[in-house]
């Protein structure tokens, strides 16, 4: 555990530098904010277009789907802020040999690689997404309760854990297939499925996105918590899945590293 603590100290120093560096690029903040607003608008228009031709999407009303969309955007913001700049660089680090420099440090390599760099401006995506979810929640006419809030926070944390585990899994493939450098694009493609509630997909697709690559759940379950659809049993299951995902990511990382070091880099 001391290794984790030391890693946090090292990371904090990195984040400070990172923050000072980012301050130089305020233009990026404006640009990324405009980008987020634009893509949010496109997503809202898409949902609006669906609802021009239907009254509900897989049993979800318009504002319910917008709640989900807000959560999707917040989760995407977490990906952009932490995962893409951090563990997303793993494949290029493996190829360039930069990973060796990490491995010789007295830090927890997985922790360090995952959180070394923050794209702080993209936190705006998280804020905007949650704000949209809150607004849409108000529009649904539901009232906030302790159970709703707690179950949302827990399931959203689980969603982050699952998305993180998927990134670790995809990026670890770099240890086996050095030639593939756009694994992140594979995530982007699959994550598109999480824009809609799982119940909106027909049979074959539901099987693909919901069971084979259970990515659609990452937004559906937290959105269910906010829209009164979450059964306590499902919440428990989600929690178990989140913990299992973190455990699995750790095991996978170890296996990948073992392969890396035994192959002599």
């Amino acid at each position, binding site marked *: 555990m001391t290794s984790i603590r030391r890693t946090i100290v090292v990371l904090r120093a990195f984040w400070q530098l990172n923050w000072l560096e980012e*301050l*130089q690029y*305020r*233009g990026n903040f404006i640009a990324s904010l405009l980008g987020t607003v634009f893509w949010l608008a496109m997503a809202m228009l898409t949902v609006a277009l669906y609802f021009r031709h239907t009254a509900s999407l897989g049993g979800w009303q318009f504002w319910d789907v917008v709640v989900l969309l807000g959560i999707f955007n917040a989760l995407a913001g977490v990906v952009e802020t932490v995962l893409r700049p951090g563990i997303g660089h793993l494949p290029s680090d493996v190829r360039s040999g930069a990973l060796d420099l990490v491995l010789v440090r007295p830090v927890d390599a997985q922790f360090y690689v995952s959180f070394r760099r923050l794209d702080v401006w993209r936190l705006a995506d998280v804020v905007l997404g949650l704000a949209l979810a809150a607004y849409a929640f108000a529009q649904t006419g539901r009232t906030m309760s302790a159970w709703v809030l707690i179950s949302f926070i827990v399931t959203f944390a689980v969603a982050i854990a699952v998305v993180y585990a998927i990134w670790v899994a995809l990026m670890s493939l770099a240890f086996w297939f050095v030639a593939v450098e756009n694994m992140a694009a594979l995530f982007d493609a699959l994550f598109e499925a999480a824009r809609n509630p799982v119940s909106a997909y027909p049979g074959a697709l539901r099987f693909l996105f919901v069971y084979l690559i259970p990515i659609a759940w990452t937004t559906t379950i937290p959105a269910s918590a906010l829209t009164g659809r979450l059964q306590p049993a499902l919440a428990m299951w989600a929690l178990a899945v989140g913990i299992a995902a973190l455990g699995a990511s750790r095991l996978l990382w170890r296996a990948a590293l073992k392969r890396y070091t035994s192959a002599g880099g």
Partner: protein
Amino acid sequence: MPAAIVATDLSKTYDVKVRDPGIKGALAALARPHYRQVRAVSSVTFAIERGDAVAFLGPNGAGKTTTLKMLTGLLFPSSGRAQVAGYDPWTGGNPFRQRIAFVLGNKQQLLWDLPPEETFRLNRAIYGVSAADFSARRAELVELLVLGDLVDKPARQLSLGERMKCELAAALLHQPEVLFLDEPTLGLDLEAQQTIRTFLGEYRQRHGATILLTSHYMADVTALTSRVLIINRGRLLYDGELSELVARIAPIKRIEVVLSEPVPRARLEEYGRVAHFAPPSATIEVPRESATAASARLLADLAVADLSIQDPPIEEVIRIAFGEGAQDTDAEPETPVRADVRRAPP
């Protein structure tokens, strides 16, 4: 026949956005950008005859690359004119491009993921080289550059030196009349540097190509050419023979001796300035004209095991030249140190 490269009063001025450091500066620059005019190249005039090789020397940011970019048609001059292979580089179009090659040491055009042979094929088509010419030239370049089977390995697997050799081959398949080289040996190992120097000399001999190169390495210069252009802060400070520059700027010779008996430093100072003293060897600087006499006296007076007379190292001469040039531009901006052999365009 007109000269291969003619630059007449060539100047280039950039508008550079001025920005104070920090967030305040960034925001102020966003609101009301300030521009400062920077003269990268200032009234540069020279001419290079067909088949000549000339080295372009100067510290980083002196204006060498900007001048090369104007001569290759990448940039257009703010004022003045350039003529290369009979064309105005900026308006010469494809007929002009057919006649030149521009090799940048830090930016390779070899297809990174494919063997150099593929880049050769591509350049053959791009420059419209006939099949017969292509195979003859390819064979010659492969031989002169000792490429062997390097041409069949993906470029990314080659060493820096191997890549630069292939880069040169790719750039010469269309047999350009004028060859511009920007730091062609930068960062290469000694052996690769040597191969490239020898190659460029040999290639020029065979094909009468005109070469203008910039380099940090004096060995590139001394191996290839006797004529140098020295530029600093955008101004041409010197155009002429390297040896004359040495003679004028540093009119000294260095006598290197190895003594067979210990001699105190003070004793050596009777002959000239002792630049280096590490018994049993020492280096004494003497005025050029008295070098022979001083050597004779040394040999007569002391127990000398070995003695040689040499020019001061070029690096030092250049450094002195830049030092003088810098002082001179401050004092009297319009006249450079003096380019004795400055050749006016026809």
